[in-house]
């Protein structure tokens, strides 16, 4: 299903990403279709079901609490020990990334709207806001091609002071970079892997900027960035989902 006809002739990855970004018509058409068949209830529980399926039972995961963790323990094992990835595996990963991007985009929307930043800092934040929204567009498009895209979660982030928000931004971006790194090895499609890699390093850039603003090291993990598992990331972002 991840289909280009010949695995040896994968088109230039940069081209694939830009095509997906421009491919708006197909995405909107699909979402219209999906909206008709998916009831509001199904859409609302979409994220919970997704977390349950992908939260996994990794020994490193912290408790996710509630029904989603019960579901997680009886369904798919954690990605690090699951069987060979498949197209449906790619969809799960893309939807996971899309969920994180939805949260990041809303984070920046709230930060911009807060009026806490001005001048150069605001300019940087607006650039990052635009980056995350662009990631959402591409990942929605990729997910639509593979199946049903994740439902957009409603984000809740504490936005109080510039200093507090900068710290939160560093947390979110460093987590995002680590999340992408954690999945790189699980993606089956070379095209989707290329897209994920091209987003992964953007999140790393964002993270480094906020680290620097906080007078912290741009490379908190040193010479080799550390991946974080899907279950750990989802547990970490749970407080930011309304």
């Amino acid at each position: 299903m991840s289909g280009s006809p010949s695995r040896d002739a994968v088109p230039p990855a940069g081209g694939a990403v830009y095509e997906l970004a421009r491919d708006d018509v197909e995405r909107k058409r699909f979402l219209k279709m999906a909206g008709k068949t998916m009831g509001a209830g199904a859409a609302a529980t979409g994220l919970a079901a997704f977390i349950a399926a992908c939260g996994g039972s990794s020994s490193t995961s912290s408790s996710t609490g509630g029904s989603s963790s019960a579901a997680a323990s009886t369904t798919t094992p954690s990605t690090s020990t699951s069987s060979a990835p498949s197209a449906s595996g790619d969809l799960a990963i893309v939807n996971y990334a899309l969920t994180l991007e939805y949260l990041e985009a809303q984070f920046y929307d709230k930060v911009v709207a807060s009026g806490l930043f001005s001048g150069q800092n605001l300019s940087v934040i607006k650039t990052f806001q635009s980056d995350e929204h662009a990631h959402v567009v591409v990942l929605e498009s990729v997910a639509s091609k593979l199946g049903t895209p994740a439902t957009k979660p409603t984000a809740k982030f504490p936005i109080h002071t510039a200093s507090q928000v900068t710290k939160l931004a560093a947390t979110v971006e460093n987590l995002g970079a680590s999340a992408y790194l954690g999945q790189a090895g699980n993606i089956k499609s070379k095209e989707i892997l290329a897209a994920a890699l091209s987003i992964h390093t953007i999140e790393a850039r964002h993270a480094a900027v906020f680290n620097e603003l906080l007078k912290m090291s741009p490379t908190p993990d040193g010479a080799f960035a550390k991946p974080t598992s899907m279950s750990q990331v989802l547990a970490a972002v749970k407080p930011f989902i309304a």
Partner: protein
Amino acid sequence: MKSSNIASPELATVEVHGISRASFILRGAMAAGAAYGATAVGPYVSSALAASGGGDLAILNFALTLEYLETDFYTVKGKSVGLSGEAKSLATLVGQQEAEHVAALTKAITAAGGTPVKKPTFVFPVTDQASFLKLAYVLENTGVGAYNGAGPSLTNPAYLAAAGSIVQVEARHAAAIGLLTGESVTPDGAFDKPLSKAQVLAKAGPLIKA
């Protein structure tokens, strides 16, 4: 492949956390081999290592060349050009990390039975801190493009994990340098462009003398 390589080799992946599945299985196979003798694990090991064959090693050696370049640039050229303040501390940090990348890539190539490229001689046309930082910005961003371009071609999952771990750090370097120089921290916009080997050589080639 020499039987001694199969009987008791280390699988020297680079030091990333979160062992890939293939690498985990391979380590298990080697442990079993140590207990039961080489023949039990021989075919499994040789096919797993063959999976990271010529293509992967060529990519790792290309990466090693770039890491040699960056290490030389920050540690040798950085000293001779005379850096101060934040530029100096950043160059020191980055140079140390590039040297770690050299060590890790060399170890991985050797462990796979390959021959690491020798360190080339480089020439960096920079004369002061400003021109040094300008070139640093180019090199780091080129490094990001190089790893992102090569990544999908890697067949061994352990190498992809390592490349991902390294490229994230190169991207952080690029952003930190951009902040220092006032250049864009995201010069490609929302998506970092993967570069082909030819595109990378267009940037880095002129700096390699021998």
